């Protein structure tokens, strides 16, 4: 890849911004509904206090849920991937529960827990867990048989096998799965916010929309977009730096 495309995101941002400005400037879209970028920026800075606290709250909740879901996925995923007995009993029920999207559970969680933080954490954790567990299981199954045999021939038992072969082989899978989970976590937390209707970025968007403060609404949307993109890119960059021998296609 030549230098010009080293930051493809910048090109994308440029294209989007240009289109946005052109569309609003030329009157192609109704400026009432979609204000030009400078308007959005101004509105966002105006209401920075509310916007930032909503962001921190949503992201904090999402992070906790993301972490819990991921850790659970590692533990259960490794057990399922490694031991056929566990796999045969657990994978069916896992597939069954995976079919229930986390967003559908938000009302249920709200009924049961009542506390918006717990509801958020639960929903994000559920969504991320089921997505990540598939990746972890796949990762475990992809650890080369030959490398395991080699380690065993040198006398490694289960624990050493895990430490010296399992974990190092799995790290790139973990990172990849973390990366894929980012968008899922964001969707879930935003919807949870909207459904719970008390606070957080999702609620902020609903509220500003119903008050016709579109500048602020788009500012919130932009923040979510930026965060999602930034985290995604950060993880992808670290993956390339830390695990250069690895490519996503292995995980399919």
């Amino acid at each position, binding site marked *: 890849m030549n230098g010009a495309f080293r930051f*493809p995101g910048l090109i*994308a941002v440029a294209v989007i911004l240009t289109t946005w400005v052109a569309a609003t400037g030329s009157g192609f879209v109704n400026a009432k509904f979609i204000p030009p970028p400078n308007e959005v920026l101004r509105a966002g800075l105006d209401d920075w206090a509310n916007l930032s606290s909503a962001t921190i709250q949503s992201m904090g909740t999402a992070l906790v849920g993301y972490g819990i879901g991921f850790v659970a996925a590692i533990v259960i995923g490794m057990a399922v991937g490694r031991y056929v007995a566990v796999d045969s009993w657990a994978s069916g029920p896992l597939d069954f529960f995976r079919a229930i999207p986390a967003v559908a559970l938000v*009302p249920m969680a709200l009924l049961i827990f009542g506390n918006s933080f717990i509801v958020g954490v639960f929903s994000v954790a559920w969504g991320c867990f089921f997505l990540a567990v598939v990746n972890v299981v796949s990762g475990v199954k992809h650890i080369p048989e030959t490398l395991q045999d080699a380690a065993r021939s040198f006398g490694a038992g289960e624990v050493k096998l895990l430490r010296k072969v399992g974990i190092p082989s799995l790290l790139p899978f973990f990172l990849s799965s973390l990366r894929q989970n980012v968008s899922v976590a964001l*969707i879930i937390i935003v919807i949870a916010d909207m459904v719970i209707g008390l606070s957080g970025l999702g609620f902020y968007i609903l509220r500003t929309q119903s008050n016709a403060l579109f500048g602020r609404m788009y500012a919130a*949307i932009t923040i979510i977009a930026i965060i999602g993109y930034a985290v995604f890119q950060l993880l992808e960059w670290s993956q390339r730096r830390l695990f250069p021998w690895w490519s996503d296609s292995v995980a399919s």
Partner: protein
Amino acid sequence: MSGQDKLGSAWIRGLKTILVLSVIFSLWEFVSRAEMVNPFLFPPPTQVFTDTLTAFTNPPYRSGEGLLFQIGKSVYRSITGWTIGVIAGVLFGIVAEWWNKPGSVAISVLEFLRPIPVILFLPVLVLIVGIGDLSRIIVIAWASFIFVSINTIFGVRTAKQSLLPDVVRSFGGSETLVLRQAVFGLAVPQIVAGARQAVGIALVLMVASELILSTDGIGWFILFMRRSLFPAQMYGAILIVGILGLIFGALFQRLEKRILRPYIR
């Protein structure tokens, strides 16, 4: 492994799954009936079943449309949105990548847009096109479009790197023929992979888009049942969403097998 063998193990798997799920549901039934947990918040599965069943014929809300109608609405929206998104995605992907230079920009823009949850735009869409099916369909179509076009572009990229386009040219085929015969054919597996991801996303967005600013659909039903304090129906609807997901997945798998049959070596 003989065909007989595979069938045997699939049956055993299914049996084990049913066993585990039965244990879980029986436990829930017991714990609920014994009132070890709040039976209002956690109604026993038998009650969930019967109450949900009545929701099909005698729903506890004014508009009078039963659960089947709600399900039908949701399914209609998701399938329509997904189909539109897939078709648009394939067309866009092929066009974008085949005519080289713009292709590289297209993929950057698409990759940039991908992590942005499209559900955020639902409030705006509702403003513009109103609270009806259209806003939800647009949301689902957009998300499907993003997934499928990204995958199509990658598929076309791989196809371009293969020798087949040149083979068609060497036999005197026109560029459109090359496109149709060689490129599309080679890109199909990747496209199907994108479509598969889109199925999952379509389901999630179907429910999600009905939880916000909605007046019907199964997502709305779940929310309404919570608000009106009919938890049994709520659980029932949630399980129905899960079942729908499994059905969609299975149907798509069938379709996928059909399409990919010539590709299995």
